[in-house]
């Protein structure tokens, strides 16, 4: 299979403009004759559905939550990047492009990243016009703050709830169209299969989560904005419902899955407190501006932090990275925390956390200043742990946060299946092997508001599709597949709950395909996962029926897909014999213990093709070329 990225060539500054000019347009009067199905209602899906409807298309939008406003984009805290250069501090579209390519450890497409940086300007304008209450200066102008991986202030924010406010902006635009009847919203509806006719994506099979009814929906194109798959690890900062089912079932129908092993681990999360733990909560990385990270010098030290004198503490980030100190990038901070815990020097009941200490900052600046800067985060920490970070250090540990991998798409955001578009975190295209802070919101909205609505018209205008109904063999087959999965889950009638399997799978993934990976561990995981999957299908216990609200059944279907995805992630991690960004292979590191890339052999996107249950997937490579930002080793010493 030849992977054609359709990336334009020539001067990078004008690639998107020239490409857009060459796209075919759909006449305004004809747009209403086309139907587009949008799955997912987060920043990407919600903004796409609203914009497509504004343009005049018929849109159906689907989400599994009770309202499109619940999508997990809502939980993003920090902000959204845009190269406005409002601060005259040397920012530019080119610099945002440069930072993003470098931050992604040279594993993203230059064309896509430049377009993203360029569109960042329009996003802020659009969101302001919608009434998103961004933080303001006293003059009434927009305020900015700085964020990791950048030396300029380009992050726009709405308190600690930027994701919420941007999502509500998109949600309101979407509801506006729902009110006009141009979008039909289907909440509590989960996509369970993709309908592919003559090689083209033509519809989806869904399950109504309240009645259990399996339904078919047809359209001229299908758009997946269904988010990332971090919940394969069971514990992550994702919402409980986040899942891989939509993109995985599209993968099973032929869509390639790219770079599945690229996962981001966030260093500052509240640590696990017990076996009952259901999710992990992120604390903004801005805390590392004033907090000092340390563990006791000796392992097994059970004294309280205040009893440990200064000379028996190891401020390991400051010691190892004197110039960046506590502000090293996410991947470096995470790996070092894991290292000291593996040495037996971790703190807390489980030994799986490190201190983030504000004592010195409070002494230097006073508690009121710290409260003003981080008050809401301290309160949140206190609410969850019952501990007071003003008087004792916080305890933090890394957690799975974001997945850079996803379905392969070309420059038009179309997968290798014609008519199937993939946007936001669900695709693989813009962040390479590591995403910079405040860039996820930017990409979701760029795809949904500005890229997809432009590119989809080219496909619709170029193809005349036959009418489709339930009698088509491909449709019948997809419906039968969905009903069969439900039946098998309900009939297994075993002894173990879905969650118990999910936890066990998550532990395998965290141990062998988490922060640090090696050949031996990955091979072990590739033995254990299929065995556990087999046991799952034999002995999972799902009560009730398929004709009612059945939350166990919903979860079971998602976990079944996580099993298959987990295997592909390990395979991809094993195949990539280098370290880059979030993918750290212990065998491939510099003498100082940093990630060692192998540009000669691995400068490509790995796109995997599904071959059937239990069969090895086939790898296709999309070579990456860098005309503007030249690959270099990252160093933070």
């Amino acid at each position, binding site marked *: 299979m030849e992977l054609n990225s359709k990336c334009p060539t020539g001067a990078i500054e004008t690639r998107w403009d020239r490409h857009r000019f060459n796209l075919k347009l759909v006449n305004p009067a004809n747009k209403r004759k086309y139907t587009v199905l949008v799955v997912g209602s987060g920043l990407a899906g919600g903004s796409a559905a609203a914009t497509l409807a504004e343009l005049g298309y018929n849109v159906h939008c689907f989400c599994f939550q009770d309202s499109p406003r619940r999508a997990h984009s809502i939980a993003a805290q920090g902000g959204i990047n845009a190269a406005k250069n409002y601060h005259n501090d040397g920012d530019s579209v080119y610099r945002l492009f440069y930072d993003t390519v470098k931050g992604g450890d040279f594993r993203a497409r230059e064309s896509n990243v430049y377009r993203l940086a360029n569109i960042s300007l329009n996003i802020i304008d659009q969101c302001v016009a919608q009434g998103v*209450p961004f933080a303001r200066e006293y003059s009434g102008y927009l305020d900015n703050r700085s964020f990791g991986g950048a030396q300029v202030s380009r992050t726009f924010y709405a308190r600690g709830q930027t994701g919420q406010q941007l999502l509500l902006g998109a949600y309101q635009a979407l509801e506006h169209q729902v009110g006009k009847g141009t979008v039909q919203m289907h909440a509590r509806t989960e996509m369970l299969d993709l309908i592919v006719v003559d090689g083209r994506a033509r519809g989806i099979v869904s399950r109504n989560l309240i009645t259990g009814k399996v339904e078919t929906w047809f359209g001229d194109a299908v758009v997946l904005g269904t988010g990332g798959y971090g919940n394969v690890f069971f514990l992550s900062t994702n919402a409980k419902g986040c899942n891989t089912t939509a993109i995985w079932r599209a993968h099973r129908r032929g869509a390639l899955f790219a770079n599945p092993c690229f996962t981001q681990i966030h260093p500052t999360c509240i640590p696990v407190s017990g076996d009952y733990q259901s999710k992990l909560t992120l604390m903004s990385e801005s805390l590392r501006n004033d907090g000092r990270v340390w563990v006791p010098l000796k392992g097994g030290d059970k004294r309280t932090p205040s009893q440990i004198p200064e000379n028996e503490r190891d401020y390991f980030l400051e010691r190892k990275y004197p110039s960046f100190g506590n502000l090293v990038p996410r991947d470096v901070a995470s790996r070092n925390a894991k290292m000291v815990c593996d040495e037996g020097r971790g703190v807390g009941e489980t030994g799986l956390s490190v201190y983030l200490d504000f004592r010195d900052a409070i002494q230097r600046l006073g508690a009121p200043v710290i409260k003003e800067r981080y008050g809401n985060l301290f309160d949140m920490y206190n609410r969850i*742990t019952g501990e007071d970070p003003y008087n004792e250090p916080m305890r933090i540990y890394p957690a799975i946060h974001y997945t850079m991998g996803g379905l392969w798409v070309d420059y038009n955001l179309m997968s290798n299946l014609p008519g199937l578009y993939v946007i936001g975190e669900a695709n693989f295209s813009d962040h390479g092997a590591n995403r910079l802070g405040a860039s996820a919101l930017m990409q979701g909205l760029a795809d949904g508001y500005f890229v997809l609505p432009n590119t989809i018209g080219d496909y619709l205008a170029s193809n005349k599709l036959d009418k489709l109904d339930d009698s088509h063999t491909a449709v019948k087959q997809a419906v039968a597949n969905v009903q069969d999965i439900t039946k098998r889950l309900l009939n297994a009638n075993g002894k173990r709950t879905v969650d118990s399997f999910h936890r066990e799978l998550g532990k395998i993934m965290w141990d062998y395909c988490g922060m640090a990976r090696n050949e031996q561990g990955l091979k072990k995981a590739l033995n254990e996962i299929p065995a556990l999957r087999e046991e799952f299908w034999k002995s999972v216990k799902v009560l009730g029926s398929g004709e009612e609200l059945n939350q166990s059944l919903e979860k079971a279907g998602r976990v079944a897909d996580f099993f298959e995805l987990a295997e592909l992630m390990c395979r991809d991690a094993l195949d990539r014999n280098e370290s880059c960004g979030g993918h750290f292979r212990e065998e491939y590191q510099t003498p100082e213990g940093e990630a060692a890339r192998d540009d000669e052999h691995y400068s490509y996107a790995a796109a995997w093709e599904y071959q059937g249950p239990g069969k090895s997937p086939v790898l296709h490579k999309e070579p990456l070329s860098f005309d503007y930002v030249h690959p270099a080793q990252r160093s933070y010493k």
Partner: protein
Amino acid sequence: MRIVLHVWRQRSASDAGKMVRYEVPNVNHEMSFLEMLDVLNEDLITKGEDPVAFDHDCREGICGMCGCMVNGVAHGPLPGTTLCQLHMRHFKNGDELYLEPWRAKAFPVIKDLVVDRGAFDRIIASGGYVSVSTGSAPDGNAILVPKESSDRAMDAAACIGCGACVAQCPNAAAALFTGAKIAHLGLLPQGQPEREQRAIAMVAQAKQELFGSCTNIGECEAVCPKEIKLEVIARMNKDFIRASLRTR
């Protein structure tokens, strides 16, 4: 510690429903409230009993999906806190807790603690937006917003649409929810052109959804996990009255 739960069990919208008693023997202080329900459900499934259905998603207090009445208080006893952010250290051994779904005509029960809040979406669809099509916006800094307006708009925009205000209100009014959106957009320059039309449409929609009328009791403000102030209802009433007088 041991917690005794009395949980509203209702198989479907048409079922009558009843309270059922459960004991959760090994509750850890560090657990969140929803994690305690997870433990209960794992136990029920293992015993072959139908687990308790409850809505939840982000579990960090921002998506607005979770919530039920705990001993008659929406989201439980801790102020400014969603159910998912309530932890068991605030309870003691032997506590008896009565869990019920949001009760309001406009929020029909779907199953157990799960209700249908689609009415909230329809209120937003009736006018809770600024009509600006993608691509037509001027530069972000072309619209100046005084910091105070922006901060107050943000206070109102913090609403997570969970429905606790309706559940706690003796009239089952949606005034705090509707007022929060009207205040958020009405405080900003971007929201001015449609301000009057918005207030009329959203208030009418809330009425049509069979929410009750506001009689200034204030229970909504007391349980709001985002601590939205009653002031937003005053803003809504002001906008509504002004719009009613001026609309022909």
